[in-house]
């Protein structure tokens, strides 16, 4: 008996490899948006690596945190590389998350039988938001301090136990070294492990039902004599080599940002991140990072704190019910022009909200913020009716694909 036979007999790995790579049949007509999924996996691994390295030099105390973070920048060999990888990586993960979700919405990937894939994926996005928030409090800059104060104060709106919960989250009446300790614990263990677990679930649930494609039709409906979908190709080697090319292009973009524009015009690394926490010097306007600011703009559009929080929570939770709001038998918006236009307006509106959320709270923005919040909610409210009655074109029986 050769070593290979001996090993294979005892190992679950060959079977897993077949199930998820070599014999996982994916539609052959994936387009550019489908790179986002594998790139996210790459970025999570890179965040883990860079995070591990910066964690080795970080001191989670109110006195030492800020100096230790800049100690990495100035004194640690290639510390700037670890730091910029970790900081810019966050923003790039959110770019990819938005592309990944937008693609799912464009081609109806959240529809039956993939509702759980969508819900698990959206939960991962929320976990990333929490992870990012805990992460940007850790350097204990003035932005960290005030953003931490503002975000943890949201818990005060919980009826009856709000004050108690806020104290529990902060580890005291205000932001302090204790807050840093528990946020670091959450950032590097609990929330990170939840993210990894959710990603595993996301992939397992996807592989159970199979991938969607830009045409939104089931490739399993037309199978060849060998029992495999005729329009499907094994993930390995076809998509693994394709994703390798995607990795290359993406790493060039990532590298160019790290080496030549690490702050990305202070969008990826805000200016107020460069001054230490000061409880006596509140920031004139605390704005969240760009990837959270659409929701912040909606929060701010209502002048009552509790009503604003309710609107923001509703806005964040709405996508969970998306699979049941869409009632059209056709999945892909390639064949549903009205939904496609609605979606494009929704995406543009999301960008505009992100921009507005970064601006100081001036009256001239209030109308635009309210309009943006209205369009965001209106999309979800209108979708059940529009999808029921909209005219559609008939999707093809087989996927559209041009050999290249």
């Amino acid at each position, binding site marked *: 008996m050769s070593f290979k036979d001996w090993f294979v007999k005892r190992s679950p790995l060959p079977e897993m490899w077949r199930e998820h790579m070599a014999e996982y049949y994916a539609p052959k007509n994936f387009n550019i948006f489908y790179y986002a999924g594998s790139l996210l996996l790459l970025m999570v691994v890179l965040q883990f690596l860079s995070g591990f390295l910066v964690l080795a030099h970080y001191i989670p105390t109110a006195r030492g945190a800020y100096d230790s973070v800049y100690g990495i920048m100035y004194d640690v060999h290639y510390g700037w590389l670890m730091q910029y990888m970790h900081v810019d990586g966050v923003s790039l993960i959110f770019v990819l998350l938005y592309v990944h979700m937008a693609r799912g919405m464009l081609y109806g990937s959240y529809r039956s039988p993939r509702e759980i894939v969508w819900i698990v994926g959206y939960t991962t996005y929320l976990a990333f938001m929490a992870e990012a928030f805990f992460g940007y409090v850790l350097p204990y800059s003035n932005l960290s301090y005030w953003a931490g104060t503002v975000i943890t104060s949201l818990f005060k709106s919980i009826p009856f136990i709000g004050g108690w919960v806020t104290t529990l989250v902060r580890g005291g009446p205000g932001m302090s070294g204790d807050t840093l300790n528990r946020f670091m614990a959450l950032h590097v263990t609990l929330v990170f492990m939840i993210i990894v677990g959710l990603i595993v679930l996301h992939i397992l649930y996807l592989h159970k039902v199979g991938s969607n494609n830009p045409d939104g039709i089931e490739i399993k409906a037309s199978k060849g004599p060998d029992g495999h979908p005729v329009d499907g190709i094994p993930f390995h080697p076809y998509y693994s080599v394709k994703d390798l090319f995607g990795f290359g292009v993406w790493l060039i973009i990532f590298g160019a940002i790290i080496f030549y524009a690490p*702050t990305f015009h202070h969008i990826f690394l805000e200016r107020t991140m460069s001054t230490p926490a000061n409880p006596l010097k509140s920031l004139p306007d605390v704005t969240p990072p760009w990837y959270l600011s659409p929701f912040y703009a909606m929060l701010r559009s209502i002048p009552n704190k509790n009503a604003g929080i309710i609107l923001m929570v509703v806005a964040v939770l709405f996508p969970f019910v998306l699979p049941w709001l869409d009632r059209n038998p056709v999945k892909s918006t390639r064949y549903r022009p009205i939904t496609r236009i609605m979606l494009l307006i929704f995406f543009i509106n999301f960008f505009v909200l992100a921009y507005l959320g970064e601006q100081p709270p001036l009256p001239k923005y209030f109308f635009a913020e309210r309009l943006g919040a209205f369009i965001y909610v209106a999309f979800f409210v209108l979708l059940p009716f529009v999808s029921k009655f909209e005219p559609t074109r008939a999707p093809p029986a087989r996927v559209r694909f041009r050999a290249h």
Partner: protein
Amino acid sequence: MKKYVIWAGMTLGLLTGGAPAVFADNGPQLLTPHYTYNAKTIISGARLFATNCMACHSIKFMRYEFLTNDLGMSKTDVHKYIMLPTGSAFKNNMTSAMPTDMAHKWFGLPPPDLSQIVRYKSQDWIYTYLLSFYRDPKRPSGWNNHLFPNVAMPDVLAPYGGIVNERGQVLRAGDEPPPKFKEQVTDIVAFLRFVSDPSVVQRHDDGPWVLGLLVFFTIAAYFLKKEYWKEVK
């Protein structure tokens, strides 16, 4: 392919022309320093900084050795022009000799550390700030600033740039002609920009190699992908 061009165009149009153009900028009008960002301007800024600023302001994350290692300044020059007689070692951080408790007494607050000031405030802000001082007898220091009203800092650069009153009338001309003075202020800004991120030297040294390697990898991966996908009909 055409589709992707349209998508890219839409995204770009949105980011550059769309939303931001609708609203005007919110901050005060700032001047922009024009200069080439190289070792020469940075070193000349470092000398001005050491002579005029470092008595009060620390740049605590910087070390003297960064000036030789990263900028190629000679060790003797650093000793002669930059290092103040504080008994500091060459590997030490560049901190001011002013005791913090005394600074509290003199200014109300110790002068801020300037390690990250360009990151925090922007080059334009520093440049405008340094050119916005005017004589104001009502202030305890005798100075005030258009950009930062009632600032505790006096116009340290007045001997070079001269003294103006609130309306900009020249009360005493400086030792340097105005264009030369502006160049000096620009050099200080260049130095502070370097201080806020000294990794720029290493980043720009390593960048082409890393990106070149990645481009090479990507080209190889592209042809590998093309080879495999030939079979997909």
